C-alpha cells in the first residue's frame, strides 16, 4: 500500500512538472524569447558563473583550512618528509595556475556575455602568446621533473647495508611478516611447500630458515633503515602504510621491495596526535577480492632498545611447529634444533 501511494505521488509530481513545462513552452512562444540570444537568459547564465566562481572558491578555502588536520596525515618516515615537500610545492604551483585559469574562464564568460551592439574581436592567432604559454609551462614542469627525479631516485635507491630486512607477504585476505632471526638471513621459500600451517612455504633444506620467526604484528625500530621484502602468494596486493608514505605492490612470482626509516615511535605518535589509541597500520591498495578492504596489519614502531628486546623474545617458527622437523634433512637436524631455540626457551 505504501509502495502504491509512493508510485501515485511520483506520478502526480511528474504530471505537474510536465504541465509546468508545457505552460512555460507556450509562454515562450508568446514572448518570442527563443529569438533572443541565449534564450533570453544570457545575462542570468553569465551572472551564475560569477556566483559559482565566488561561492566555490569560498567553500574551497574554508574547507581546506578548517580540515587541514584531517587530510594531512602526520609523517613518520624520513623520505616522507621530502615526498610531502614535493607534494606541497606542486600544490602551490598548481594552486596558483588553478586560481588564475578558473578565474579567467568564469570572468571572461561573465564579462564578454552577448551584447547586440558589440562585435567580438577577430583575433585568430598570435605566435608570441602561443610561445609564451608553451615555454612557461615547460620551465615550470622542468623544475617539477628535476625535483621529482631527485626525490624518486633517492627513495628508490638500494637499501643501506645495515638495514633490517623483514619479509611481508600478502594473501587473500591478510598480511604475514617474517623476520630473519639471529642469523639475519631470511630462509628461502618455495610456493609448492605452502600449506595451512607453513604459510610462507619455508624450505627446510635451507639452514637460514630454522631461526626465522613469524610474529602477529610488524615491529620496526625507530631511526633505523628497514627494508621490506614484499611478495604475494595468490593475487596482486599492495603494501600501503599511509603514515610512512610507503606503497609497493606485492606480486606473485616477482619479489619487490621498499626501504625507509621510521622516525617516530608509536608512543611518540600517540603523543603528537593526542590519540592514546593511535596505531600505525598497513592496508592493501591493489584490488584483490572480497576482503580487499579488510587486509589490516598492525605496525608498532619501538625505540631501538625495545625493538631488540622484542626480537629476542620471539620464538622461531620451527620451534613453535616442531612437526616440520620431519622436513629437515637428516644431517641438518641437530643444527635446526640449536638454531630454532630462542632465548626464552634456552633460559627455561
Amino acid at each position, binding site marked *: 500500500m505504501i509502495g502504491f501511494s509512493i508510485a501515485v505521488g511520483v506520478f502526480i509530481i511528474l504530471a505537474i512538472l510536465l504541465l509546468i513545462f508545457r505552460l512555460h513552452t507556450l509562454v515562450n512562444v508568446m514572448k518570442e524569447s527563443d529569438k533572443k540570444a*541565449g*534564450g533570453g537568459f544570457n545575462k542570468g547564465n553569465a551572472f551564475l558563473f560569477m556566483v559559482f566562481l565566488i561561492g566555490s572558491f569560498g567553500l574551497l578555502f574554508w574547507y581546506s583550512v578548517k580540515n587541514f588536520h584531517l587530510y594531512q596525515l602526520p609523517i613518520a618516515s624520513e623520505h616522507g618528509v621530502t615526498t610531502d615537500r614535493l607534494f606541497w610545492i606542486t600544490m602551490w604551483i598548481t594552486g596558483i595556475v588553478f586560481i588564475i585559469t*578558473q578565474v*579567467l574562464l568564469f570572468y571572461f564568460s561573465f564579462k*564578454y556575455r552577448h551584447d547586440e551592439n*558589440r562585435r567580438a574581436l577577430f583575433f585568430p592567432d598570435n605566435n608570441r602568446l602561443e610561445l609564451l604559454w608553451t615555454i612557461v609551462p615547460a620551465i615550470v614542469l622542468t623544475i617539477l621533473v628535476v625535483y621529482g627525479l631527485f626525490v624518486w631516485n633517492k627513495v628508490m635507491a638500494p637499501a643501506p647495508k645495515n638495514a633490517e630486512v623483514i619479509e611481508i607477504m600478502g594473501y587473500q585476505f591478510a598480511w604475514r611478516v617474517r623476520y630473519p632471526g639471529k642469523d639475519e638471513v631470511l630462509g628461502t621459500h618455495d610456493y609448492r611447500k605452502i600449506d595451512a600451517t607453513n604459510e610462507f612455504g619455508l624450505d627446510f633444506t635451507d639452514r637460514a630458515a630454522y631461526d626465522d620467526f613469524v610474529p602477529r604484528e610488524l615491529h620496526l625500530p625507530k631511526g633505523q633503515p628497514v627494508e621490506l621484502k*614484499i611478495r604475494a602468494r595468490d593475487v596482486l596486493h599492495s603494501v600501503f602504510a599511509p603514515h610512512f608514505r610507503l606503497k609497493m*605492490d606485492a606480486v606473485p612470482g616477482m619479489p619487490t621491495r621498499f626501504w625507509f626509516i621510521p622516525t617516530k615511535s608509536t608512543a611518540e605518535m600517540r603523543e603528537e596526535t593526542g590519540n592514546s589509541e593511535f596505531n600505525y597500520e598497513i592496508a592493501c591498495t591493489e584490488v584483490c577480492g572480497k576482503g580487499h*578492504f579488510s587486509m589490516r596489519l598492525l605496525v608498532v614502531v619501538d625505540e631501538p632498545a625495545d625493538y631488540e628486546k622484542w626480537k629476542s623474545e620471539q620464538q622461531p617458527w620451527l620451534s613453535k611447529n616442531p612437526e616440520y622437523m620431519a622436513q629437515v634433512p637428516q644431517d641438518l637436524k641437530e643444527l635446526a634444533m640449536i638454531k630454532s631455540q630462542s632465548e626464552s626457551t634456552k633460559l627455561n
Partner: protein
Amino acid sequence: MDSTVVNEHIDHAVEDHAHEHHGNFITNYIFSTDHKIIAKQYLITGIFWAIIGGGMSMIFRLQLGFPEATMEWLRPLLGDWITSTGKLDPEFYLALVTMHGTIMVFFVLTAGLSGTFSNYLIPLQIGARDMASGFMNMLSYWFFFVSSVVMFISIFIETGPASGGWVIYPPLSALPQAISGSGLGMTLWLVSIALFIVSTLLGGINYITTIINLRTKGMSFTKLPLTIWSFFFTATIGLLSFPVLLGAALLLIFDRSFGTSFYLSEIYIAGEALPNMGGSPILFQHLFWFLGHPEVYIVIMPAFGITSEIISTNSRKPIFGYKAMIISLLGITVLSFVVWAHHMFVSGMNPFLGSIFMLLTLIIAIPSAVKVFNYLTTLWKGNIIFTPAMLFSIGLVSFFISGGLTGLFVGNSAVDIQLHDTYFIVAHFHLVMGSAAFFGMIAGVYHWFPKMFGRMMDNKLGYIHFWLSFVGIYMVFFPMHYIGIAGFPRRYYSFTNFDAFSTFVDLNAFVSIAALITFAAQFIFLFNFFYSIYRGKKAPENPWNSNTLEWTTPRNPGHGNWPGEIPTVYRWPYDYSKPGAKEDFIPQNIPFSKTPESNLPHEVKEIEKEKAVEKA
C-alpha cells in the same frame, strides 16, 4: 581525385533517386548504412549504457556514503547480491565498480562519444555523401551491439560479472578461485571487449579513410574544422592501440582456459599450488596500459574537438590558435603512446623506468596547457551566447583544468607513491577525462540535435540540466581530493576496519547525496532529448549561425546529405565577427570573391584560385 569520382557517382545516384522512397523500415532504421542513422544508433546505445553505468555508481555510492543503512529495499532489483543481513555483498560491490568503469570508459565515452559524433559529423563537415564504406560502418555498429549484449548478459549471471576492476589485472582476473566474478563473468567480459575492439577498428579505419579521401572540393586539411582533426587523431590512436589490448586479452584467455603461464607464476590459492611458473603479472599491466592510457585520450580528444567548435561558434570569434590547436592534438597523440607506465610507478617495475615515464608524462602537460590557454583567449573579447552546448563546453574547460592540474601530482612518481590507488586518483580521472568527456558529449548533443532530429531542444531545461550537473559533479569529485590526500584507498567496500580511514564519514555521505542529485538531473536531459525529438520546436537550417558545412544541408538531410551538388569550400571554418563583414559569420562555402568588404590582404590572392578549386 578518387574522391571526386566517388562523389560524382553518388551525385548521379542521388539525382536519379532523389524523390524515390526506397528501402523498408529494417534497411532504413536498423541495418542502415547511412552514417546519420548509425550515429544515432550509437548515441541511443550510449545513452542506454550511461543510465546503467551511472545507476551502478549510485548503488555503490549509497554503500560508501551510508555504510550503516540497510539495502534491503534493493532486493527486488539485486536479489541475492543483498546479503541476508540486508547489506550489499562485498564481491558485488567490486563487480559494480568494475562494470561502472568498463561501461563508462568503453561503451559510453568511446562508443557513445566517438561513435556518435565521428559518424555524424565527418561526412557532414568535410562535405561527403557518406562514409567511405557504409557497410563496414554498419558492421562497426553491430559488432558494438553484440558486444553490448554480451556485456549486458554478464550482469545477470549467477556468479556475477567481472569484478577485478576495469583494468582486469591478473592473477585476480585469471583465477575463478580468487573471486567469483573471474568465472563466467570474466569470460563474457573478454568476449565482449574483443568484439568491441573489432567494432572500434572497423569504425576507425572508416573515419580515417573518409577524412583523407572524401573531402569536398576546396576542403584542404588546413580548412578542416577542429572536430574533424580531433576525430582523425582519435581514430589513429584507437587503430594503433586497441589491437594491443586484443593481444593482452587473448593471452589472458589462454592463461584462463588453456593452462599457459603468460601472467601467472608461483601461485598458491584455495589450498592448492598451481603449476604455472615464469609468467609475469607486470607484463599484462604493460600491455593493458599500452591501450589503457591512449584510451583516455581517445575519450577526451573528441570532446576537445566538439568544444573547440562550440566555443568558437558561441563566442562569435575564431578559435584562437587554430594551428596550435592542431599541433597540440598531434603532440598529445604522439605522447599518449609513451606515457603508459605512469600507471605502474609502484607496481614493482624498475624505478629507472619510472623516471623515464615520469619525464614523458609531465611533457604531455604542455600541449594540454596550450589548449586551455587557447580556449581562454577564444573567450576573451568574445560576444558570448550561452546556449546549453556553450555552457557544457565551458564546464568541460573548467573540469579539464581542475583534473589536469592534479595530473602533475600523480604523474610525478615520488608524489604518486602516496597517492596511487587512493581517492585522489578517482577525483583526478573523473574530472579530467570522465566528467570532461561526458560534458563534451552532452555539449555535442545539444549543439547538433537540431541537425540530427530537425527540432530544437528546450533551452531552459538545458540550463537547469547544466547547473545541476556542473555544481553536482564538482560536489562529487572535488571532496574526493581531500579523502585521497588522507590516503583512503579506492575500491574499498567500507573504511571501518582501519583507524587511519575512520574520518570523513560526513564528507562521504555528502558526496553520495551530491551524486544522487547529479544523477537525477540527467533525467531532465533524457526528458528534454526524447520529448524534443517528437515535440520540439522545428529547427531552422542554421540555428547557431555556424560556419561549418553541416549547416548548409536541409533541415532533415536525406541519404546523401545534400540534395544537389556538395558545396565547395573556400575558407577556414572560423570566420566569425570578421571586420567589415555584414553578418558576424561567413560560412565555409562562401567564396572570397563574394566578400570583398571583409577579405584580409592574403585572402585577396585566394580569389584567383577559386576557379581552379571549383573545377577540380
